[in-house]
């Protein structure tokens, strides 16, 4: 038996650096981004981070592709908003700060209700069943107006309840800090869960469900427990959304929300814990910020997603990790010029494409009033040929340049990795 010294892990300061750094950043962000819009965006990001991390408990950690995760966050949101109304009417004495627990517990209960039958199988069957249940619940929401509030949804007032320490959740800043605290707590909890026996066995079930059975584990129970836990955190995020927006409607359960978290998690990267966090930030940026600039935001997001599926299925996190490895070995300098060329060409092609898309939208909607589209300082008369021709040329040239640059990147990449391989031999 080896007699190595026991490693005192909890006292290792380096481990706490990311967590402390994140906490500090979350605390200080509102001071940097004072604009109300930025605060809204940050709040939405926090909510999405919890939702995406809970989704990755299923997708990345247990190998379960769900098309209906919004069911749990939506139902958690509905329960939370009803509780909030009860608090407002004085029928329930419960601190608003702890309302996400109501969302979480109700999400978990629905996870127990739907989870046992849905987790019998994994793979495509699970995906289909999750889709079916999501559509079923969404369809039910219009049939039961008592609970779901019909087409208008259910509204509430988040400033009810006894304010303590002057916190009433009236101002958006206070809501932001509530979300920030819950995001830290939920993230830490989900991270801790990955380092438990259940978390590790869930990984084993993902990699090889048959072998997992042959080491004594009922894969059905493992998947079921992961689903219930994921549903808990989804419910927490739903409740925070209910507090933030003070309204819950049928779209909280809907296909677009379920699809959105799938997009977000996949773009971020399912193989790393931090992947969904990155994906949630990117996704919220598209939905919250880019959507106010262009009508085609979902097209761009969809294209981004598809490009990731085709060329980087490990997500942004995998790209970052691979490049960090190269950088650690001091070889990033060989890649940087190739990256730069590809980035420049790609941006040009994207610019050409986006110009055409924006001009199409402008032509359909606004050109009747004023044929000139102002885009990035350019004045483009969409009723004449030159802007279209110009944009097409930029797109074609950028595209061709990107094709060439991408091949150079690939060559350099292989070179770098050959050196890395030799270095470790």
């Amino acid at each position, binding site marked *: 038996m080896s007699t190595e010294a026991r490693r005192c892990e909890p006292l290792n300061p380096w481990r706490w650096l990311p967590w402390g750094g994140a906490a500090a950043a979350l605390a200080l962000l509102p001071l940097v981004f004072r604009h109300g819009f930025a605060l809204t965006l940050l709040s939405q990001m926090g909510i999405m981070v919890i939702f995406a991390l809970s989704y990755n408990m299923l997708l990345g950690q247990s190998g379960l*592709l769900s098309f209906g995760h919004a069911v749990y966050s939506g139902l958690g949101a509905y329960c939370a908003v009803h509780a909030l109304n009860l608090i407002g009417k004085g029928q329930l004495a419960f601190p608003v700060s702890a309302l996400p627990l109501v969302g979480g517990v109700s999400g978990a209960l629905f996870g127990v209700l739907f989870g046992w*039958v849905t987790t*019998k*199988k994994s*793979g*495509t*069957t699970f*995906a*289909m*069943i999750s*889709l*079916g*249940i999501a*559509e*079923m619940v969404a*369809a*039910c929401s*219009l*049939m*039961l107006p*008592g*609970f779901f509030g019909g087409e208008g949804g259910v509204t509430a007032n988040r400033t009810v309840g006894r304010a303590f320490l002057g916190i009433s959740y009236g101002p958006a800043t206070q809501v932001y800090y509530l979300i920030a605290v819950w995001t830290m707590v939920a993230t830490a909890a989900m991270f801790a869960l990955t380092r438990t026996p259940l978390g590790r066995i869930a990984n084993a079930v993902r990699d090889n469900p048959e072998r997992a059975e042959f080491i004594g584990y009922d894969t059905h129970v493992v998947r079921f427990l992961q689903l219930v836990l994921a549903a808990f955190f989804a419910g927490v995020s739903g409740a925070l959304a209910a507090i933030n927006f003070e309204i819950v409607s049928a779209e909280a359960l809907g*296909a677009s929300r379920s*699809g959105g978290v*799938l*997009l977000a998690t*996949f773009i971020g990267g399912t193989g790393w814990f931090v992947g969904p966090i990155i994906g949630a930030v990117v996704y919220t940026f598209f939905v919250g910020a880019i959507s106010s600039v262009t*009508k*085609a935001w*979902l*097209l761009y*997001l*969809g*294209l981004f*997603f*598809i490009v990731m*599926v*085709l060329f980087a*299925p490990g997500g942004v996190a995998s790209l970052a990790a691979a490049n960090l490895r190269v950088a650690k070995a001091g070889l990033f300098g060989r890649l940087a010029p190739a990256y730069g060329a590809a980035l420049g060409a790609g941006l040009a092609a994207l610019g050409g494409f986006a110009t055409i*898309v924006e001009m*199409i*939208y402008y032509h*359909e909607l606004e050109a009747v009033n004023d044929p000139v589209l102002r885009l990035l300082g350019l004045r483009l008369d969409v009723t004449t040929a030159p802007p279209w021709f110009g944009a097409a040329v930029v797109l074609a040239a950028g595209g061709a340049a990107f094709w060439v640059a991408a091949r150079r990147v690939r060559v350099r990449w292989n070179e770098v990795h050959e050196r890395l391989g030799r270095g470790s031999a």
Partner: protein
Amino acid sequence: MEFFLVTLLNGVSYGLLLFMLSSGLTLIFSMMGVLNFAHASFYMLGAYFAYSISTRIGFWQALVVAPVAVGAIGMLVERFGLRTVHRYGHVAELLFTFGLAYIIEELVHLVWGRLPVDYRIPAQLDGPLFAIYGTSFPIYRGFMMLVSVTMLAALYLALTRTRIGLVIRAALTHPHMVEALGHDVPRMFMLVFGGGAALAGLAGVIGGNAFVTEPGMAALVGVIVFVVVVVGGMGSLAGAFIASLLIGCLQTFSVALDWSIAGALARLGLQPPPGLLVTELFGITVSQAAPVLPYLLMVLVLILRPRGIMGTREA
């Protein structure tokens, strides 16, 4: 009685349309293992192409050109998209088609706008075909059934009587063996995917003007097609046929029925107490519950008999 007959015919015509969609999906799934989330998007493209062509040139030209165009797009998608993701596994292929559905919907928004477009039934086919005791059955529904049956008969003949059909049927169950025998399986994948897309596009041409043509149509029909494929049994054309008719009739009948459990209880002289959730549930009529019924059926099938009605492969 007349209500029953007309509703049945309507249900069958809708079911045949569903079969045009689900047969393409089943062929693609059986042969390539890919569950094509963008299949209903091809349906939508067929309808929109037909709209544009029929308003500029004519309906009959649209009937031929639109499916071919959609089929060509399908082949391109397979050649440049699916083939790239193929090596990452079935989940990646599924996600690719999932993202594709988003993109196609957004492109439709871009080109045709977000509102429904006025894709009309051509004048020659507008009007009643026959009437039973006052309830009329439209010509166009009959036309839909004719086109569906003709197309499916052609598909059946192509699969059973031609050489390429034989090879495709072999590749449905044993793609690797067929490749080992020297057939160009990737080219066949492209043909099958394109053919499935063209079939979906044709369904869009004839269905888009009977029902509504709007950007949300892909999502609506798409889920129903999945229900059909799951209930019929993934990988079984016969099962998809039965399930298409079943669900077509289920949906058509259920939106017309005003029965409810409360109504049945009232006939027996019972009245549940007001205000309870149970009472609210019992008060729901079949027509109100109609949207839920297909999904309820799918979930029940997945729980109780995951193979579906006639499935050979489990998902």
